């Protein structure tokens, strides 16, 4: 595989990751969200593998396999089980309507591009141009967490942000040192268990996973 071809494939994957990030923003059905999230993880994993191959950085393969295992198989599976167990409503409520969210999302992509443009110029890596996409994915995950009022969707937004961060690490620097990547993956795994526990706690206490029902703690009580 030549480097230019790899770079082309990588930028297609970047585009797909961005697309799934938008898909998460506009998707209404909760299983749809889950599938999109799994796809995003898959694209990320392939992209990491390709970058590892091109750059000859072996530990990226480990990172790629970790992403595949964690983001494509384990986490969607856990979420799937949780959704079934808790009989969560299949449609997702949003705070801001979807077209507006899309427009904000586009603005965020432009913002990310603007922000990373000076950095991209400094880089010599073939994958450098995907850094803007990585930041945009982080921002879109953040937007999703703000505009969705359901605990599960907030978590998916959070994990999608994490995907963006991994993507940033591989595209800007060919991956962080292995110890850091492993540590981050471990943290995500722990976080996954914690939100699993949380869902049950929220569910048993509030009878729904709608975050709006948690509004008791205000400044003036």
């Amino acid at each position, binding site marked *: 595989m030549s480097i230019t071809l790899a770079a082309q494939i990588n930028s297609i994957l970047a585009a797909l990751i961005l697309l799934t990030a938008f898909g998460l923003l506009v998707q209404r059905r909760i299983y749809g969200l889950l599938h999109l999230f799994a796809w995003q993880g898959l694209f990320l994993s392939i992209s990491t593998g390709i970058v590892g191959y091109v750059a000859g950085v072996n530990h990226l393969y480990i990172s790629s396999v970790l992403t595949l295992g964690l983001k494509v198989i384990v986490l969607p599976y856990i979420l799937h089980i949780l959704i079934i167990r808790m009989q969560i409503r299949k449609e997702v409520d949003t705070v801001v309507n979807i077209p507006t969210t899309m427009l904000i999302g586009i603005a965020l992509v432009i913002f990310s591009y603007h922000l990373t443009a000076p950095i991209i110029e400094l880089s010599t890596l073939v994958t450098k141009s995907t850094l803007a996409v990585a930041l945009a994915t982080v921002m879109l995950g953040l937007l999703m967490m703000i505009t969705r009022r359901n605990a599960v969707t907030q978590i998916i937004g959070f994990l999608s942000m994490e995907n963006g961060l991994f993507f940033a690490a591989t595209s800007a620097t060919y991956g962080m040192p292995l*110890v850091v990547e492993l540590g981050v993956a471990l943290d995500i795994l722990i976080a996954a268990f914690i939100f699993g526990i949380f869902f049950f706690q929220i569910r048993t206490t509030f009878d729904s996973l709608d975050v709006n029902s*948690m509004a008791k703690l205000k400044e003036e009580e």
Partner: protein
Amino acid sequence: MMILILLAVSFVAAIILAFVGDRRFAHEINIIGSAVTFFAGLGLAVQVNMQGPMLAGGKFFFVDYFNVYLAVLTSLVSFTTAIFSRRYMRREREHGRVGHWGMRFYHAMFQLFIFAMLLALLTNNVGVLWIAMELATLSTVLLVSLYRTPTAIEAAWKYFILCGVGIALALFGTVLLYFAAERVLGEGGEALLWTNLNQVSGQLEPTVLRLAFVFLLVGYGTKVGLVPLHNWLPDAHSEGPTPISAVLSGLLLNIALYALVRFKVLVDGATGTHQAGYMMMGFGLLSILVASFSLLRQKDIKRIFAYSSIEHMGIATFAFGLGGPIATFGALMHMLVHSLTKSSIFFTVGHASQIHGTQEMDKIRGLIKGNPLVGWGLILGVMAIVGMPPFGVFVSEFLILTATIKDAPIFTPFLLIGLGVAFAGILRRAQQMVSGSVPPSHKSLKAANIPVILHMVLVLILGIYMPDFLNQWFHKAVELLK
């Protein structure tokens, strides 16, 4: 070697307590573990005092004058908190607020939290620092929701989500930092070591670092509780068990600030300007003002002190941002005395709310008559925290004010307003609570007195006399942070 013991003890204790956390002797194990950690911390301090800064574990850990005192402080406060939690949590267990699994979980996570904080302090690797900070958040999230009340779960969820987002942005900042460092130091773990980064800070790309710092400031700033990223803090402090409030307020905020200060030094070194400092000053000042006015409106006893923590973190952030030897010295000392005072206040507050069965300040009365230790502990602690002489907080705030008047006089009025409002707001409330007659709903209890007395004595001593070794550490730390 000492570092490894320091870290290993709390980790091993966490594992043991996960199994025996609800036995009768669990509290003692918790105390012993923390005590051993504390003595290891002291040993480390002695070692550093004699040999100077050092690397350990193949460059993986490092100790210098900045983090050694924080490590000792962390192990000390966690030790005293463990003592406090013995009586406090026993009572909660007897009253059925916490169950069997809750106790096991509480003990294990308490130790894990200490482990994470010490790791964050002592690691030489910026990435590991991030991991440890995230671990510290994750280990406390479920402790905040330990009581399973709706408000507790809401607070914990908020804490989880906000800090999760914050820390994710911090990771992006770390990636950018690595990106800049890799160009100078080459690929691999070497490029993320503090010791290496500080040596080459002048060669790092300023544009990248400037952007990285924005992300790091927002990320770690969320953990410090800087306004406007502070929303999780009062909720998490007020809804969790009091020992957790004490360590969150006294320790976790410090560690996050520690990370922020390290990055600030690095970034200002790279850009050759004072931009990072200015950003910290802005956030600090905003935190002081917003927090001091917010605490006027509070009705919950733990929330008012949570806002006070935001205010004091704001003061320290402002002072670090201001820079200069006096302000930095003041900020270092402020982190120390605030942590001691605030955790002591939370100890007494915890007992006060147990005595009255509520956290509402309006219903808490007559503490001095009802339980002299709690009453006097609270009022003295409050006097210390609002900056009355002769306590240590007065000294540190005085130093910071002096530096402000000299270097940035326009900010002096804002600082004074913030301090004044907080002074009036907290003291007024505290006075009502400690004075008056004992209400009939009063329940007597055996308070944990050693931690309160120890902390207050230390704060008093620091206000009157600064030990020689501490003085030297601070001076050397100021040199490091220049």
